[in-house]
């Protein structure tokens, strides 16, 4: 019809299939890789602490940070839907703490950890604790770039939790059974819990701890020291 405006040209409106083949979590995984490289380059031991709400992550961290104070540099990134209450609780421990409020979000992701690290700028040799949102489901899918994932379960929960949340336990490197000072008052069987945890992850090491009384904490500190040593000797 007309060679000036091109109205004689037709565009096809036929449906076509485009191959995509992209991982849904590709962007997060790329950021996690970047985090991991950054941590390795600066000998930073990054740990992702996960559990149900109320298992005792913050109390454990308070005790741990107090024990590490003046000996090992430490820093904390803590995620909660709302408030800075967890960060406030850890304020007196000598370690810098950043609180991330996820709002409606149910997990931390690699991007949030990346941005928090820019703010924190941990020195080489730091043990960086990431206290994830209390949730045994969603955080399992989101690699943060950590060296190890530590899953916590308290004796006031069911000892069959590892069977009910296999994805989380299968993807973890250490299991801490917390609040063991309450064992005389509950129905929790530690040996049974360990068996269940190893059914979904045969290599999963399980440690029993009580942050308020100190029971088992020396073994947990020993695990930290060993992991930190591995990271420090990696260059």
């Amino acid at each position, binding site marked *: 019809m007309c060679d000036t405006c091109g109205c004689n040209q037709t565009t096809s409106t036929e449906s*076509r299939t*485009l191959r995509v*083949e992209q991982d*849904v979590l590709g962007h997060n995984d790329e950021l996690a890789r970047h985090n991991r490289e950054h941590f390795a380059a600066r000998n930073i031991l990054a740990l992702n602490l996960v559990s149900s709400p109320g298992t005792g992550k913050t109390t454990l961290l308070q005790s741990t940070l107090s024990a590490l104070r003046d000996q090992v540099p430490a820093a904390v990134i803590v995620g909660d839907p709302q408030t800075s209450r967890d960060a406030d609780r850890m304020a007196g421990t000598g370690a810098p703490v950043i609180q991330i409020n996820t709002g409606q979000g149910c997990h931390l992701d690699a991007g949030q950890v990346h941005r928090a690290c820019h703010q924190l700028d941990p020195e080489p040799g730091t043990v960086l604790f990431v206290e994830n949102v209390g949730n045994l*489901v969603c955080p399992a*899918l989101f690699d943060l770039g950590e060296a190890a994932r530590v899953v916590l379960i308290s004796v006031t929960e069911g000892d069959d939790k590892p069977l009910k949340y296999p994805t989380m336990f299968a993807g973890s490197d250490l299991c801490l059974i917390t609040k063991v000072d309450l064992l005389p008052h509950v129905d929790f069987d530690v040996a049974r819990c360990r068996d269940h945890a190893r059914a*979904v992850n045969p290599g999963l090491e399980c440690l029993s701890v009580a942050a308020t009384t100190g029971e088992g904490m020396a073994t947990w500190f020993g695990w930290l020291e060993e992991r930190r040593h591995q990271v420090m000797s990696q260059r």
Partner: protein
Amino acid sequence: MHELALAVNILEIATEEAQAAAAGVIRRIVVEVGQLAGVENEALAFCFELARNDTPAAEAVLEIVTVDARGRCSACDRVQAVGLSVTGCDECGGGLEIVEGRELRVRSIDVD
């Protein structure tokens, strides 16, 4: 729930691909979800319907292809179906390494 974050990611990937191909409308998005991916298909479908509004995929169908979980025995090399709990090889009891079932990817999109 995390399926909302996943649905948003799926739409971002699909939109980028559609834009790269100069396509205006996305009709279908095919995703592979492994049995061990930690995703609840119904939740993903529900969240997709919420998240697709005001995107080029506003009318798109989400097709979820489930990938069965399979493991290879480290001792006898036999590949077999696996469940969420780790059991030994059906044949020799050896340890199983997961070779399929953790996928979470956008396979393809249909566009106009």
